[in-house]
């Protein structure tokens, strides 16, 4: 194995660049299709959709590790002015609380150490889709 750059590396870098551009295009297409009124914040815990929170109603949702064993500590999800954030959580690097307020259907809040994902939905969701 060579330890210095060669021409094959630059082909690989070119392919990576094409891949990134393609992903950017796909991302834009997916995001543009997601426009619409912000209605609900969906809280998924341990891979299951647990809460459907009305984005028009300011509130705080407190989740405890006793109820959801995947949580590393108490988690508080806050909805205010049609925006959602993780106000408090326990995780090694606190990325999801650092992400702060989210008001786009295309930007999920991901907290993998706690196995929690929060996504905003812009359309009405049928009630029978829920595992509450």
């Amino acid at each position, binding site marked *: 194995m060579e*330890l210095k750059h060669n021409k094959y590396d630059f082909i690989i870098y070119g392919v990576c660049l094409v891949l990134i551009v393609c992903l950017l295009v796909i991302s834009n297409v997916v995001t543009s299709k997601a426009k619409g009124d912000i209605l609900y914040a969906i809280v998924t815990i341990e891979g299951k959709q647990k809460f459907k929170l009305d984005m028009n109603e300011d509130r705080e949702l407190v989740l405890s590790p006793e109820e959801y064993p995947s949580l590393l500590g108490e988690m508080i999800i806050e909805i205010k002015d049609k925006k959602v954030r993780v106000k408090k959580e326990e995780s090694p690097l606190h990325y*999801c609380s650092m992400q702060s307020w989210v008001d786009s259907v295309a930007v999920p809040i991901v907290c993998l150490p706690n196995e929690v994902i929060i996504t905003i939905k812009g359309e009405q969701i049928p009630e029978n889709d829920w595992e509450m």
Partner: protein
Amino acid sequence: MNKKTNKMVKMALLLAMALVINYLESLVPLPIPMPGVRLGLANCLGLVVLCLYSEKDYVIFNVLKVVLVALLRTGFGSSFFIGLSGTLLATIFTLLTYKFSKASIYGLSVVGAVFHALGQVLMVMLLYSNVYMINYLVVLEVTSVISGLLTAFVASVTLLKLPKKMVENSRS
């Protein structure tokens, strides 16, 4: 010490180093507050294994690393499957590039990093049925190219510092 034992001891030491680096890295927050963005410096030891030993040893090293990280720290929850999918995809594409091209350690490392991010995000999309994770993937791929180059640099410096005899004897 016979050759087989010698190799086993060195592989175990490299694996232990990879686990320690992985742990230390998890304690240091990066300036980009995004899940999945990390330097992946432990991967430089995987590249050292690929350079010193065989493709089979590289696969064993990578799989053992994921299993041991889960066993010692993260557990066998969703993070294990996310890590495993990233590692398997990265290992497969790194080996394909290694076999069918003459790319240097830099090219191989970038391929590994890019497919590691892709594997992880695809698994998250699958586990959480969330198509918008693709927005993270764009950022993750850009950062993984940079981290791949950095990892390759560290691995190449490490390999250049090793005694020449050790590098030659490892593959024979």
